[in-house]
């Protein structure tokens, strides 16, 4: 038997190259004759562009051209929708206003480009931006989500009757009836603010138009290479095989790099063709904060209806979701919020209403978590509020309401981002909760440690929350696997990689079937020249959806190899196995043929070829799940708070997680660690701040606080439970967003618990010591 390589912590194939500084990232690409782009961006969030004077900028030595809307003609129109509207939801209304490549008449967010400069260097391009003089007529900005909908409010899109971008109501059971039966109804207003993805590598694109070959090559750190290729070809009237998108090594994605038809890719592809020279744009950090999409701002009005015993009968949540200036990404984020609000609790009645609002802020699209952290924050905070009123233990109230392990599959009655009703495929939520309670020594903490600390005047608080993570949604992904004449295996898939270890985990999936070493499998992701079908890397779906497609393709190749080998070895297929790069007879391992030889034989260069046969040891397969696989988990945290400065220290952080069958447990843990860093950042450090004119106030790391090593707990304690997903043959569930989802909710609960003597209630995320201090002062005064 071959040694198993699936479900094993194998060191990464890609690491030596990266560690040696030899991995090629976008800005490392230099082509002969390359030009550099910079965008002149609007300082105003909402203004009419009356005119723009670029004459001085054009005259600067080294400037090749300065282009404004009028230079781009018909290209200046709203881009395509990135995500379709949720027509599957009855009664849903929406207005689609997609992002513009460049400002023609009106600026709708600060940072929207009004001109693009192409120059011999980025330095000169930035110099030229200083000599561009736009004449703006500033308008009042739409910022506050609720005021934006008041009659007479200034309109972001004047052709619409209001700033309402969408309105979606979903209900299961009947909340009004549930509320009527409840012993207690708690109502709260809850805020979640905006954060940035902050991939360490900013966005970027290199476009080369080879005029002789009539071929366009685009290198882009995109999460969606196939979409980028197809949209580019469509827009430019090119054949799809005239455009090749290559995703180089990418320094993190976390959501925003999913967007295509952004100003940069629309304008620079056009200019590369006009100028017949390669053009590079590597976004700088200030641009990244201003003009790359971000997420999370929502205002919730939530109600929880419970019995005296703590049983949750119903939940109601009406929330305003900030869409930003455009809504090209439609409703993925708020739909995720809806599906993740009550998903792991058996709540019979649930009413959820989205009011999506256009504002003069940067466009909102998913950031690691993508609406899920908000849903979980609202639910968990409301359970805590109910527990407080009922004087119940926070773990106990959760325990009694969790969905039980024998209940799957559980239909949620709520349609999600994939436009089908959410179904929880598998899981064991009570076990996750119990494990976390054991690991953090819950009973002992409550009965011994905490009382003792309190007696000593210390402020130790514990938070414990559960969550689900809808992952691995459709539509589909595909893969092509080819065995070479040397027996080495090439895998190509349409998703791109931003650090998720695909070069290893995908290789593990293929190697497991083909009996080769993981290092002998070369994975190519995000190169449309290698594979050009698929939707992209988002929603924790790479491993689940593309991974399954790779598995299916590998099985096909394996079958092909066995069939062929059976002829050469004169042995029935059932007696053959793939081991160590050979197909061998199970009982007579010396009777074998190498995969390389088989591959060569399957690709004859002379002679005849049987009708219906396909050459080579190669196969393509596709996989589309009926609905997403749902991961889940539980997190607990102990905070030690300095009650004078309100500075918390994370004493312990424990997490138990269910990803189904992990392909590579080491990689899974790493994914969770990273998510937790973002979750801690979201809870207490990170916040994108706009003022009331729509001016971004946090466009640097001086004011946008990125969580550092000393902001993290000294150790993240983790354990896993494995409830394989029945939806795919490998039992995989996604994990990319898990860590980010529960952390802010756990953090707030622990803070409240630590500051027990103040009675403070923290119904807001993105806190700071000062904000906690203000809340505490208010609580003390009340």
């Amino acid at each position: 038997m071959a040694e198993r390589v699936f479900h094993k912590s194998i060191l990464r194939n890609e690491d030596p190259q990266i560690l040696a500084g030899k991995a090629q990232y976008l800005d490392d690409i230099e082509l002969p004759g390359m030009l550099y782009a910079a965008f002149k961006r609007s300082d105003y969030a909402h203004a009419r562009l009356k005119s723009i004077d670029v004459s001085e900028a054009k005259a600067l030595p080294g400037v090749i051209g300065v282009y404004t809307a009028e230079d781009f003609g018909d290209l200046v129109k709203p881009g395509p929708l990135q995500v379709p509207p949720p027509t599957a939801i009855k009664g849903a209304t929406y207005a689609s206003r997609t992002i513009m490549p460049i400002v023609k008449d009106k600026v709708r967010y600060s940072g929207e480009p009004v001109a693009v400069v192409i120059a011999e260097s980025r330095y000169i391009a930035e110099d030229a931006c200083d000599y561009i003089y736009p004449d703006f007529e500033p308008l009042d900005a739409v910022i506050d989500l609720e005021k934006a909908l008041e009659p007479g409010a200034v309109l972001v899109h004047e052709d619409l009757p209001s700033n309402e971008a969408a309105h979606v109501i979903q209900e299961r059971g009947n909340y009004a009836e549930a509320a009527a039966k409840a012993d207690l109804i708690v109502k709260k207003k809850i805020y979640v603010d905006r954060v940035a993805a902050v991939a360490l590598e900013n966005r970027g694109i290199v476009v080369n138009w080879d005029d002789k070959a009539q071929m366009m090559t685009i290198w882009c750190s995109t999460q969606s290479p196939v979409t980028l290729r197809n949209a580019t070809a469509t827009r430019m009237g090119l054949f799809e095989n005239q455009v090749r998108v290559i995703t180089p090594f990418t320094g993190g994605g976390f959501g925003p790099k999913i967007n295509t038809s952004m100003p940069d890719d629309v304008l620079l592809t056009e200019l590369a063709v006009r100028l017949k020279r390669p053009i590079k744009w590597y976004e700088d950090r200030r641009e990244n904060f201003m003009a790359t999409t971000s997420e999370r701002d929502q205002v919730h009005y939530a109600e929880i209806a419970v019995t005296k015993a703590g049983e949750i009968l119903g939940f109601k949540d009406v929330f305003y979701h900030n869409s930003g200036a455009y809504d090209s990404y439609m409703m993925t984020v708020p739909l995720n919020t809806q599906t993740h609000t009550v998903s792991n609790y058996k709540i019979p009645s649930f009413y959820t209403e989205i009011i999506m609002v256009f504002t003069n802020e940067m466009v909102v699209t998913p950031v690691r978590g993508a609406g899920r952290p908000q849903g979980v924050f609202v639910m968990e905070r409301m359970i805590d509020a109910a527990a407080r009123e009922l004087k119940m233990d926070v773990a106990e109230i959760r325990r009694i309401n969790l969905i039980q392990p024998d209940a799957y599959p559980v239909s949620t009655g709520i349609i999600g981002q994939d436009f089908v009703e959410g179904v929880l495929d598998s899981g064991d939520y009570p076990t996750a909760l119990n494990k976390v309670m054991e690991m953090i020594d819950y009973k002992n903490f409550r009965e011994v440690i905490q009382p003792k600390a309190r007696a000593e005047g210390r402020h130790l608080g514990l938070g414990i929350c559960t969550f689900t993570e809808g992952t691995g949604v459709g539509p589909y992904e595909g893969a092509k696997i080819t065995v070479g004449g040397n027996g080495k295996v090439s895998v190509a898939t349409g998703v791109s990689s931003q650090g998720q270890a695909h070069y290893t985990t995908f290789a593990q999936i293929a190697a497991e079937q083909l009996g080769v070493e993981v290092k002998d499998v070369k994975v190519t992701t995000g190169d449309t020249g290698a594979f050009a079908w698929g939707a992209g890397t988002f929603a924790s779906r790479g491993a689940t959806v593309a991974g399954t497609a790779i598995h299916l393709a590998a099985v096909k190749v394996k079958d092909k190899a066995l069939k062929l080998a059976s002829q050469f070895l004169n042995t029935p297929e059932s007696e053959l196995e793939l081991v160590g790069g050979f197909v061998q007879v199970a009982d007579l391992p010396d009777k074998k043929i190498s995969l390389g030889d088989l591959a060569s034989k399957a690709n004859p260069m002379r002679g005849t070829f049987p009708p219906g046969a396909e050459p080579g040891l190669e196969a393509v397969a596709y996989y589309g799940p009926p609905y997403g696989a749902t991961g889940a988990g539980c997190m607990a945290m102990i905070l030690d708070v300095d009650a004078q400065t309100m500075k918390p220290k994370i004493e312990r952080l424990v997490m138990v997680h269910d990803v189904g069958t992990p392909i590579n447990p080491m990689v899974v843990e790493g994914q969770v660690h990273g998510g937790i860093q973002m979750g801690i950042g979201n809870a207490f450090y990170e916040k994108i701040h706009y003022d009331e004119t729509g001016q971004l106030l946090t466009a640097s790391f001086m004011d946008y606080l990125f969580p550092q090593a000393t902001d993290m707990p000294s150790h993240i304690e983790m354990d896993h439970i494995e409830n394989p997903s029945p939806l795919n043959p490998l039992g995989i569930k996604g994990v990319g967003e898990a860590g980010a989802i529960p952390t802010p909710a756990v953090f707030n609960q622990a803070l409240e618990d630590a500051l027990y003597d103040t009675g403070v209630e923290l119904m807001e995320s993105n806190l700071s010591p000062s904000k906690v201090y203000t809340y505490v002062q208010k609580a003390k005064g009340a």
Partner: protein
Amino acid sequence: MTQLVKINLTVNGVQYEREVEPRLLLSDFIRHDLHLTGTHVGCEHGLCGACTIILDGQSVRSCIMFAVMADGSTIETVESLGTPDHLHPVQEAFMEKHALQCGFCTPGFLMTIVDYLGDNKNPTDEEIREAIDGNFCRCTGYENIVEAVKLAAQKMAAHS
């Protein structure tokens, strides 16, 4: 006319003489003039640490230095450490402890840590966190980087 200034410096053991514009950032000089693209640029205001190099024996931010300021100095970048086939002990430790994911911040971490471990042979967990506090990582939560530094310290002790 653009002013050009002649500079002489040694990078990874190779001596270079170049003429540069005074405003050219050292990070851009290393990456685009010397084509040593292992040094990355993440913020250009001295906070993320992706551009960290070792200059005259100390880890510094190359994005908030002008190339002209490095005239006469000796620089090491990530390319000086090891090759894919022969990794430096710190690089090995990063691989073995899964201390990198997207890898963009990694060269900056490596240069910070190589400098740090030169002076601190046996750091505690807390000291390690303080030592890497000026390098940002979005993927790993720093958890495995701390582990890798501990392992690297052991490896380097064994090597010496």
